[in-house]
């Protein structure tokens, strides 16, 4: 196209490349430094080494934080996806009166600043006799991830055609059979996407977690935060690299699986 050869477009392209560099450079430096042999978490690079990953694997505090984050993320994904999928089904499949109002209510946890949500939940559940604890942490993560799950799942559910279910029903399947044998398999990519989204958000969360976590319990982000208090150590960079590969790799993997399942189911 002629328009794309003019100087304006060139400037925009250079600008966009600069924005990409801005977004990726700091992350690339974390990964680079995590392989630095030097004992300080900084430049210059003195050699290539896996020693910080080895030390990471022996650091009890980090391993414990990792376990906590995994369990918390998995449970959050389970609860949040269950609640989210049921609600999305109702919103997409039925003509619910006051649909917009209900959607806004379900999205409310991300419209309220997370700090405020954190304070309100902490104080209220404490008042009810549930102090800072793992269940409080879980409740917080579920309510905070629910809107994201609903948005993602709803977007995918819309694309599932009702014809197939109606065909199953007209061929004599019971509503229950239809749900488990037709609807649920078709919904699986949406369910997986929602679950992964919830897991990743929970795994990354620090804003609410610092309010809700009991003393002595750390998740990976709060552990990193605590370690930053001293100075930036090579271990933090190594842990950062592990986190980057986990939180970027997992959704990409999920996306690939979803695509594959969808393309198989669709044709």
């Amino acid at each position, binding site marked *: 196209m002629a328009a794309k050869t003019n100087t304006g477009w060139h400037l925009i392209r250079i600008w966009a490349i600069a924005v*990409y560099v801005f977004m990726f450079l700091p992350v690339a430096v974390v990964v680079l430094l995590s392989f630095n042999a030097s004992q300080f978490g900084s430049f210059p690079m003195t050699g290539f080494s896996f020693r910080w990953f080895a030390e990471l694997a022996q650091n009890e505090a980090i391993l414990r934080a990792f376990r906590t984050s995994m369990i918390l993320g998995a449970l959050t994904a389970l609860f949040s996806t269950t609640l989210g999928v049921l*609600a999305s089904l109702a919103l997409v499949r039925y003509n619910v009166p006051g649909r917009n109002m209900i959607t806004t209510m379900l999205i409310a946890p991300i419209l309220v*600043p997370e700090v405020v949500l954190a304070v309100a939940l902490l104080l209220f559940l404490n*008042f009810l006799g549930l102090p800072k604890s793992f269940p409080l942490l879980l409740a917080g993560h*579920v309510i905070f991830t629910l809107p994201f799950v609903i*948005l993602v799942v709803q*977007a995918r559910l819309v694309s599932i055609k009702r014809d197939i279910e109606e065909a199953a029903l007209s061929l004599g399947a019971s509503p229950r059979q239809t749900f488990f044998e037709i609807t649920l398999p078709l919904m699986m990519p949406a369910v997986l996407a929602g679950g992964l989204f919830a897991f990743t958000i929970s795994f990354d969360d620090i804003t609410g977690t610092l309010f809700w976590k009991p003393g002595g319990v750390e998740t990976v*982000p709060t552990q990193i935060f605590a370690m930053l208090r001293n100075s930036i150590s090579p271990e933090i960079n190594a842990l950062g690299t592990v*986190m*980057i590969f986990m939180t970027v790799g997992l959704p990409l993997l999920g996306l690939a699986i979803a695509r594959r399942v969808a393309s198989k189911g669709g044709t």
Partner: protein
Amino acid sequence: MSVEAREARQPWILLSPALGAVALLLFVPLVFIVVYSFWLRTSTGADQVGFYLENWQEVLSDAFYRDILLNTLKIASITTVVCALMGYPAAYFIARSSGNKAILLLLLMLPFWISYIIRTMSWINILGVSGAFNTFMLWIGIIDEPLQMLYNQTTVILGLVHFLLPFMVLNVFVSLDGIDTNLEDAANSLGATRWQAFVQVTLPLSLPGLAAGGLLCFVLGAGTYITPLVLGGPRDAMFANLVFEAIITQLNWPLGSALSLMLLAVLGALVLIYNRYLGMAQLMKGLG
């Protein structure tokens, strides 16, 4: 029960767990902290139940809180403007690129998946005394002493921009991608220059996306306390840091409630104004 009645009840059965969770874990707690903000922290450490206006008096009249609130709004405003200036051209590039848009967009969204704390602390590796920038400048001989660039308001804004830019790009992209490019071509064929066509046709049509991205950047930026703790100095506290201090450090929960509600009122007002003029639909598009 008739089939119709069962059919009508079904969506509510499906909705009730989620609505119940939001009610119990968000709406009731919000009402609760309104009540809590009128209680009083006593010197013995117990909370005095009652109707006291002290917390609100302190929050609303103390210049200390007012200054930090204004500073927070200033930081969030600058962050939003910088995100718009950086993000709009990038989103335009992706939307009008002849290459693979999905990959280009995914690339820019990738950092969105990378942990917030990691991305925030990664700037220490760049700007710290022995970070990439100083090492490079010392190496090529432009400076003799490492520069102290971290722990000020600029680095807080930098960290926030890095955190929030994907929200802006995504929202602007969604908006731009929905605009028929024939409109610009039509403007051109009627004699408008490329720039005129952009300013008078494309830009106005993409404003809803820009507004949605701007709202997200502002609200998320103004509500953070982690970035100032990691990248700011002792004088760079934002309003959410006050909430954290009151609740976690001082254990003054009634005061913390009042401070939280203050933050909610300011940011909530913005969301309501946005909703009044543009509606939530645009925001959902960008989030989903």
